[in-house]
């Protein structure tokens, strides 16, 4: 079984985020970067399936600047077999559909039975790319899965998808796309031998030309949604601490919620 996992390098979860001076990006000074946490669930699931079947390859694919190679190496170090790095300056300013067109073109070059994404990248929080790619490739998808099982015949998979107060049990015919939610598995850490081995594993670099795409298809001019600016969220001011003995504080709290805030 050939499995692809599309990943993204993002600022670490605990990063402090500030808009850059020009308001068109965040201030990236001093940020540390990780593999998008939801993508790690995809990598782990792919590795588990390969181990279970004892055959197949796991390919990790990313779009990003030079630095994004670190995220690919991390995935190779935990056990992925090969990596594809798509980088091209012409990609700057594209939107989610542009990204999806690039990934769709890259995925078409491989013969993948299973494609995993994270349910969203924790930087732009869009959650659209995996689903866009499924539509562009005419493949079925299941978004936000927290349980995955391959049928014995290897032709279908059953996944659980978290919805409000329930789980949808979805059966999908392969090839198919799955976007991964927390709880799917526990991603493994890289071992030292794994890190050493990663350096020998194949790393393919593709430009847009390698995918028969041009800036007009996937660059800023093709973007239908453009970023105008990034700002900080409104600052919340600390309110009042209600002092006094607990019983008094609690009744005062209820009074304030009822009379002042009018939410009770």
């Amino acid at each position, binding site marked *: 079984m050939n499995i692809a996992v599309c990943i993204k390098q993002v600022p670490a*979860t605990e990063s402090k985020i500030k808009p850059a001076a020009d308001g068109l990006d965040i201030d990236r000074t001093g940020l540390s970067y990780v593999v998008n946490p939801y993508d790690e669930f995809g990598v782990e699931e792919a590795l588990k399936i390969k181990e279970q079947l004892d055959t197949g390859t796991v390919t990790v694919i990313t779009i990003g600047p030079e630095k994004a190679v670190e995220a690919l190496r991390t995935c190779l170090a935990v056990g992925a077999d090969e990596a594809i790095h798509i980088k091209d300056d012409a990609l700057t300013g594209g939107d989610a559909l542009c990204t999806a067109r690039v990934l769709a073109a890259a995925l078409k070059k491989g013969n993948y039975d299973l494609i995993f994404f994270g349910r969203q990248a924790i930087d732009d929080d869009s959650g659209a790319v995996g689903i866009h790619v499924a539509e562009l490739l005419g493949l079925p998808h299941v978004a936000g899965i927290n349980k995955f099982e391959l049928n014995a015949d290897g032709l279908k998979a059953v996944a659980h998808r978290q*919805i409000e107060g329930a*789980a949808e049990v979805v*059966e999908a015919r392969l090839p198919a796309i799955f976007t991964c939610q927390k709880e799917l598995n526990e991603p493994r850490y890289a071992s030292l031998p794994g890190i050493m081995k990663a350096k020998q594993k194949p790393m393919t670099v593709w430009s847009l030309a390698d995918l028969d795409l041009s800036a007009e298809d996937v660059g800023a001019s093709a973007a*239908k949604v453009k970023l105008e600016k990034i700002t900080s969220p409104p600052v919340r001011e600390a309110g009042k*601490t209600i002092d006094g003995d607990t019983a008094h*504080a609690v009744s005062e709290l209820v009074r304030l*919620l009822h009379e002042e805030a009018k939410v009770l």
Partner: protein
Amino acid sequence: MTKILVVSERHEAKVKRVTLEALGAAHALSSKEGGQVAALLIGNEVASQADTLSAGGAQKVYLADDPKLALYSSEAYATLVADVAKKMDATLILLGATAMGKDLGPKVAAKLEGAFAGDCTGLALNDEGAFVATRPIYGGKAIATVKCQQAQFQVVTLRPNVFPVHPPAPSAKAEIEKVTTTTDFSLLKAIVKEVLTVVASKVELTEAQIIVSGGRGLKAPENFKLIEELADALGAAVGASRAAVDAGWKPHSYQVGLTGKTVSPLLYIACGISGAIQHQAGMSSSKYIVAINNDPNAPIFKIANYGIVADLFDVVPLLIEEVKKLKAA
């Protein structure tokens, strides 16, 4: 003319509040220039819900009532939305940023070669009818303003509890037009086999008006009973911090914050939660925040409207009593 299509979503046999919020937003956007607001109602035996949509501001209801549409199907639902959007030449397609909307929105946008903006907290249309939207990014640590380049087939999902509903007009009667699915269900490559109810809490977290959340300060999983009791008294949903979820006290579906859910209730009561930046990102857009924590230096107090520095095991039982008293009054 601005033509807006709102994709209705139901919970059991009732139209979800987030759909009414989307209708409210649609109404506000279209009223300036005499635009059109339509709703698309999809499901099995859902015709009676058209009245709620009329009262909520839909001038027209497209009704796709079919036993085959009883369960959600990304492909079948998206095809239907795209068909109706083309039929009415929709400027804008609005959905709630729910599990369904987050799945359907990007699918529809790709089908129509349209534009997509997800989980928006602000939405306006410029003179050409293209949207300018604000959406939280980096888990709410920053806000992006995005602008659409075209005035057709713009797909936007709206964060629940942000947009005001349209004042109900019970006598309003929308024109109803039946539409049929063109999907051949025997060819579907993904099928919902069943829906397992896992009921996290009685009220869904992301759509709740009031949320009571517990964190590490609860010390043990069984103490969540206290949080649940307070939530019951308030008619609220129950949430949990990442620490409580990572400890295995509650499943991930309860988690508020980065790598969990983002919520915007009227009132958020944090009990025994220190308020790490990851947690704040998921709840700081709540209208009112109450913090109960015995550590006066807990960061949660910096963003709380009201705080009580005391042991939650003393505070919460008293609070349950006071709330019950108020509700009984």
